[in-house]
């Protein structure tokens, strides 16, 4: 067994589970442990005055932003969305929109995958793995890099 496959098997053996998210019509994977909350749209406070933030989640005296994402991870606000997924970040968690979420079985085989070229965020590549089914590939989101990307948008 190659070193890469050992890595892939180790990921699976560690018992990590993954969420399959439909984001702007494209399916991505996210380690389930990276999601600290999922909220239906109805439970969130809508935001209309920000370029990228479309809602907020009130948490005690704090509030967490929700960014609208398309399938190319751009922030055009065109497609209806149903839920927000929140991932941990400092100083506060950040969320993004999704149409659908499914918790996948544990036996998923995740291969290492890093896109070629320059890194899109200071936190590294937004994708850290992939699941291959025939010729089709679903990319695994890296929560730290995705949070950094969303925070960058929030600062615009």
């Amino acid at each position, binding site marked *: 067994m190659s070193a890469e496959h050992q890595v892939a098997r180790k990921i699976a053996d560690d018992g990590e589970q993954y969420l399959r998210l439909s984001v702007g019509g494209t399916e991505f994977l996210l380690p389930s442990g990276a999601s600290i909350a999922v909220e239906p749209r109805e439970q969130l406070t809508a935001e209309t005055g920000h370029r990228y933030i479309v809602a907020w989640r009130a948490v005690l005296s704090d509030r967490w932003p929700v960014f609208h994402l398309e399938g190319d991870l751009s922030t055009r606000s065109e497609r209806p969305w149903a839920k927000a997924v929140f991932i941990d970040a400092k100083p506060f968690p950040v969320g993004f929109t999704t149409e659908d979420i499914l918790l996948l079985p544990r036996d998923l085989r995740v291969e290492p995958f890093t896109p070629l070229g320059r890194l899109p965020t200071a936190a590294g590549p937004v994708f850290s793995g*992939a699941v291959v089914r025939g010729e089709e590939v679903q990319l695994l989101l890296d929560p730290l890099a995705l949070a950094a990307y969303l925070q960058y948008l929030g600062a615009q």
Partner: protein
Amino acid sequence: MSSPRPEGVHALIIPLQGSVLVVPSAMIAEVVPVPQRLGRIPLSEPWLLGVFGWRLRPVPVVSFNHLLGAEEPPASRRSRLVVFYPLPGRAAGDFFAVLSALEPQPRLLEDGQEFNETSTGPEGIALMTRLGTVKALIPDLDALMKRFYPSAVA
């Protein structure tokens, strides 16, 4: 007594837009049809066309036309993906593919007979020359390493 085998390099001629890429055949793992749908890679370089599954691995697809600053015409039924072995020093699974406008052709390049009018090429190209009447490009592997894996090379 058998005649001596001609010396030279077994190459694959990969058709691009208005030119061909010339690479040693030993760099190529397989030539495959273009899948109906390439997976998109958001927030990636414009020359990274997407990703597809090959032998249970995710393989990124590179547009050499884009790398050279030209437009990449849409893939046709005659287009192919040329899967390259990992570049020297990379992990065993770091395959990548290049979009070819047509089926690539094997060719034996004999020493000193094929190339003429050589000149240095744009970034990513070690040598520009002519192969018959066609502009031929020989890739610069060090430059490709820098474009593909900038954080590893830096």
